[in-house]
């Protein structure tokens, strides 16, 4: 999966509320009906990257099973970024769709 896309999905997941690494991966997989399989390993570099850019922030908290885990939440900058990225994503999808299914798209 494209690096940028994973970032976007993470941001979207966090828009629903703070979560730790495992939960984020799980949400994406479940939310896509198991279609998207994330290599959990590549999640952590992505989280680090997003953190560096200031789009997410981290804090240590307690998980559901009473374990210490590192949680992430969306920052205001991240929220703006998410809005920009999803609108761009929608544009891309529409553009590709116009080429793949010209009649169907034009009639939308």
């Amino acid at each position: 999966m494209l690096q940028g896309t994973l970032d976007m999905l993470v941001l979207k997941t966090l828009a629903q509320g703070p979560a730790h690494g495992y939960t984020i991966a799980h949400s994406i997989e479940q939310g896509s009906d198991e279609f998207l399989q994330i290599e959990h390993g590549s999640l952590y570099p992505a989280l680090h990257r997003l953190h560096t850019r200031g789009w997410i922030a981290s804090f240590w908290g307690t998980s559901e099973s009473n374990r210490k885990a590192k949680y992430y939440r969306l920052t205001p900058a991240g929220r703006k970024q998410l809005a920009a990225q999803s609108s761009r994503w929608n544009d891309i999808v529409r553009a590709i769709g116009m080429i793949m299914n010209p009649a169907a798209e034009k009639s939308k």
Partner: protein
Amino acid sequence: MNWRRLFHRDQTSAELKRELDAYLEIATEENIARGMDPQSARQAAHRKLGNATQIREEVHYMDTLTALDTILRHARVASRALRQNPTFTIAAILTLAVAIGANTAVFSVVNSVLLRPLPYPQSDRVVELHQDAPGAAGLNSLGIGLPLSASMYVTFTEKNQTFDSMGVWWLGTAVVTGVGEPDQVRVIHLSDGVLQALHVPPSAGRLLSAADQAPGAPDTVILSHGYWRSRFAANPTVIGSKIMLDKPHEVIGVMPPGFRIADTQADLFLPMHLDPKRQILAGFSLQGLGRLKPNITIQQANADLARLIPIWMHAWPSFDGGSSDPIAIKVYQEWRITPALRPLRDAVVGNIKSVLWVVMGTLSIVMLIACSNVANLLLVRAEARQHEIGVRIALGAGRLRIAAELLVEGALLAFCGAALGTALAYGGLRLLTTAGPDTLPRLQEISLDARALAFTLALAALAGIFFALIPASKYASRLSMTLRDGARGASASRERHRARNLLLVTQVALALILLIGSGLMIRTFVELRNVDPGFAAPNQVQTMRLAISPLAAQDKERVARIENDIVDKLAAIPGVTSVGFANTVPLDEAGPNWDGILIEQQTYRGGYRPPMRLFVDVSPGFFRSIGTPLIAGRDFNWTDLFNRRPVVLISENLARELWGSPASALGQKIHTADPAPWFEIVGVAKDIRSSSIHEPAPPTVYWPAFGIHAYSASAIKAVRSPVFTIRTSRAGTQGLADELRRAVWSVNPSLPIAEVQTLQDISDKSMARTSFTLVMLAIAGAMALVLGTIGIYGVIAYSVAQRRREVGIRMALGARPESVRRMFLQQGLLLSGAGILFGLAGAAGLTGVLSSLLFGVQPLDPFTFAATPLVLLIVALTACYIPARRAAAIDPAQTLRSE
């Protein structure tokens, strides 16, 4: 923020590990909840995560890469900016290169000469056996203290408790025959203990030992490495072969290359033949050194030797075959002989210490000036870019990031300057080692080593930080204001100039300090040159040293006849006006001979020890040849010599001291001590400076070069190692040197000739240290002047450029060009004036540092302090004048229109 991540990589790594561990726990639990058994639950969780180590490495790498990436990006931006402004860049880099290079070179010299230990193992344990004798009048003026006598050596070695090994040595010459043409070589005679104390193993064979110096032992010799290479072609079987020095000597060893004893170089090393039973108290002519036992301090060793002095006094007679002499003991007690040991390195390095630190100090000042110059340049540039910077900040660039960019720019400049400077320093040092003054100790050891390079890097780093701080601090904080100030056409606020003005004032002050220092040294040099050394026109006096060994002439009268013949032959050479010889020439390093004299008319109480006078053996014609006039009486003639008449000449100051006037000295009789023959004074010569130009001429007694011995009527004296002095306008030419050789060899073809040089060469060598200091200070002063001028010019020129609009307005409102010009000249004058005032204050405080090097001029010399600021002021005004004129030529209409 990038920097923070770079430095917190480890912390990040640890946190990530905790995070991944937490993930594994949670994943495992979820799997168990789904029904897996604990073991497979854990395995599944691991599989889902992937390679944890790899993840951590990737994150770690991300951080490193970004930091490096940032630095590279900044560097690229900075180098592009610098390349777009080539004049500024080249000016800054050159200024820095010269300043850093000079500092590195001098630091290398200081490091090699002063800081690095001598090339002996654990050389800090090796000391020079220096002793003072404050009660022995006349000896202390030499400044080298009292040398050791052989009897002292025996007492000290036998009875000391604080030394591992010790010994004595002296430098002489010898003639080697039987290997090609007769060769005069430098020989160090050593006692047992010297080589042991230095701990330097021979590169072949063995060292000398106590057995070699016992009387009657077979004659042995050790070769120096250089002599072995040049005379024996590095033949490895040289050990055991014999060389001829008066008598055959067996070669028992070869020293390693570059070996010197206390920085004195010799070709051969001979054992001193000492019979420990048959020594007398006197004969103070030996240098001593020793290796202290571990954990013994110098004070302890001093006390140990001080305890031995009275033992020494009572152990030896005053003359061979006698017994302990109470009169002599009393005299030596009056001398108050005090051991004053010092580390051998200090003895070697000597006076040069103060010179080198002074030079280092001045070059540091130049470095400061150079740095402030470049900082000024950077400030100017930053000011020009402030609009650009302001815009960038408004668009969101972090302040820290701007500061980082400026830092990188400064660092780039500093490192380019350092690289170029190191190359310059390397070249300069090579030049110094090949063409430097011989009197600089340890010259051959000077090199650019790791410590010097580290010093350079430190300098460059400091410089870079300095540059970055100034503009960064100025502009990073006030950037919100710059945009509010409006378009770039606005007049600059006065506050912005403050930093630059301050830098300029500092530069001028520092430059003035250096120039005053140089001025004082120039005056010292001139004063030294003007000192009347007692001889005349030394560039017209050719000297050469001969050696007449017992092989060439066994009988002493024969030696004198040979010398006489040589004088005649030399005088016959065309162009030669007069010829003479003596056992030593003025300002030469050859060890002088000192002793006391007693006057006939005077009665001396028992035990009186007369003050020390310089003794020189001279031939007839010597004074004429070196240009020393006779104040009273007459010179020797050859009849005096061959009739062995007991006649002497004395120096003017001695005549005045003892008899009040030169004329009254004539006809008086003197002798050295009681059984010695009386000599009549037949002439008085003008004072001659002997050991150095700085020191006053010593009272001297001139003995005939041949005749009865000054100490005993039954002995005959001749000079076996004469230095001939030939006055001719052709002195110093190769043609003359050839003719001299031919003349000497026509009398006796086996006589070796050495040290062919003019009296001027000898005099220059003795002034070498002062000349060296002067040259260094003058260079520093010149650099300071140039840098200061550039600085003033830059500031005023920039001021003009900044105030173009203001000038335009003024001129449009009716101001005349002269008043505009005057305005800028006044600004320049004010700044320079302030700098000069501070510089004068600083110089007044600092020139005391130079006082040990000055001669004939006070540290607060009024002439120098008045003239130098004037010169600087004129230079400053000239530097201001050009931009001021350009300001006056501004066309008001143009400046107003261009807004």
